[in-house]
């Protein structure tokens, strides 16, 4: 069996080499993403400056929420989004077959042969905004709370990669699954805002079947010591466990879909 510590760097190296064949497009992609998110965050900050707070959250807290949301998304999506969005095409034209005959885990091959360095713009913006907001919010940082914050971030990134994996895996059975990304991004948009501004059924949905409240709101609220609807004192533990739990479900779904892969005919 292939040695992952050798194969993963080789896959990433090959992918980056293929991307740097078009350096202009790569840099332009980073700049456009930076500009798109930057202008959106500016708009949100201007609205907050007019109204003071949103669901009891002031601008530095919202900035932390937005930056956590973007950073968790970038980390998770760089491992998954483009790779699994292309799954439908891979199945339809048969290139998935060529991946399945490689002596390496199919998930590993797909993820690292498409590790998306295009999220560099997102990450730079998210880190910048987070660095500023952390100096503005009222949190006493200790070694334990810092470690907890990093763990929240990893758990949130795992949720993104797991959900993307599940959507992509569905294409192995349904051939078409990209419409599910539209549903995902609908909830993803909502996940940028404090959960308590939404009606109860939506809160419930975002804490269960569409668990994107755990990708930013729950961990950031737990960090800031804000009350979390429905979870209360369990918010911190739930934010830590959500990522591994969704990942386990995604692994089971991925294996089931792989076993039931039929190709698209031909």
């Amino acid at each position, binding site marked *: 069996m292939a040695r992952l510590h050798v194969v993963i760097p080789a896959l990433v190296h090959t992918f980056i080499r293929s991307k740097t064949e078009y350096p202009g497009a790569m840099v332009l992609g980073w700049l456009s993403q930076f500009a798109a998110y930057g202008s959106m965050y500016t708009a949100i900050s201007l609205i907050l400056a007019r109204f003071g707070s949103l669901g009891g959250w002031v601008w530095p807290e919202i900035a932390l929420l937005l930056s956590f949301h973007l950073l968790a998304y970038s980390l998770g999506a760089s491992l998954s989004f483009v790779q699994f969005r292309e799954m439908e095409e891979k199945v339809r034209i048969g290139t998935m077959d060529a991946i*399945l005959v490689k002596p390496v885990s199919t998930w590993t091959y797909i993820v690292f042969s498409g590790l998306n360095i295009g999220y560099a713009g997102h990450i730079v913006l998210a880190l910048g905004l987070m660095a500023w907001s952390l100096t503005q919010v009222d949190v006493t940082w200790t070694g334990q709370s810092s470690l907890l914050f990093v763990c929240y971030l990893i758990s949130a990134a795992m949720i993104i990669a797991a959900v993307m994996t599940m959507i992509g895996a569905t294409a192995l059975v349904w051939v078409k699954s990209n419409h599910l990304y539209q549903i995902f991004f609908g909830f993803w948009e909502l996940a940028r805002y404090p959960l308590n501004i939404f009606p109860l059924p939506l809160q419930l949905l975002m804490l269960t079947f569409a668990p994107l409240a755990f990708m930013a709101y729950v961990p950031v609220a737990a960090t800031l010591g804000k009350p979390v609807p429905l979870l209360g004192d369990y918010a911190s533990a739930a934010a830590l466990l959500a990522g591994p739990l969704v990942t386990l479900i995604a692994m089971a779904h991925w294996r089931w879909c792989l076993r039931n892969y039929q*190709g698209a005919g031909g």
Partner: protein
Amino acid sequence: MAIISAQGVEKTFRQPKRQSGLAGAIRSLFSRDYTEVRAVNGISFTIQPGEAVGYLGPNGAGKSTMIKMMTGILVPTAGTLSVLGREPHSNRITNAAEIGVVFGQRSQLWWDLPVRDSFDLNRHIYDIPTPRFAENLTRLTTMLDMGGYIDRPVRQLSLGQRMRAEIAMALLHDPKILFLDEPTIGLDVVAKDVVRKFLAEVNRERGTTIILTTHDLVDIEEICPRLIMVDDGKLLFDGELKHLRSALGSRRRLKLEFGTDPGPITLKTAHLVTDEGAAKHFLLDSEQTSILDVLTELGSGHDLKDVKLEEPDIEEVIRTFYKNKVQAGVAP
């Protein structure tokens, strides 16, 4: 011991029934009926190490499905399948390390990078020791004449060059079995010839077992002494190519040319099909009938000038077989 063994292998796909028209399409959104399509239906065969086997059949016969099951991509619905002593789908990764696969219509090369980069990635994926990789790369580059383009991006290569690179990449790790799914599809005559000669040599010199699906019978004639022919997912023929004609009931054609028209001739050993006067065309009634048998029966009282025995070419044999099937009301 057989390197591949298939016993009663079946693969059934569940496909939605298409309803005609817009109303049918809308109806199918709410209630969908499914039909079961048996792409592979009780196929059994064994393949010994070092064999070169052509897997032949019309579109939809189940060729690619069988290859996908042997390479571990698809899971058989029924039957037992063993490749290198393992069940391919449940040992997919282990199995993949010992086989090579070439898809004629699906490239495994990195489109934007030079061929060499794809080869180098495979060196890591297949954990090929550096000296063996270097040796194989040199040998394959020379044999397939790839020296001129190995450092060019794949997107700039012709189809023939790309296919040679695909085949070389599949052989870099010295696989025990090489599966090729339509490797010559779309290639020009020269490129096909290069690929065929190379594959025959790999089989002969290196002892690599080759399983090849194709529509092109010349591929099989030049590479594979053994032929497995399938249709509607079922096995029609498994044996040496030279026995296919008799197995499918195809008969040899005999032309007798006389100095002058001998008039009507009736023979027990051959059946007259065309009478052109001085030239008469017969079909021999069985594989065992020899020219000598016919000439003995004809006797010496004719002004016989020339005798010509024509073996039906394999393509004609198969075409006739499928044509007869269609005429009998069964779609091939």
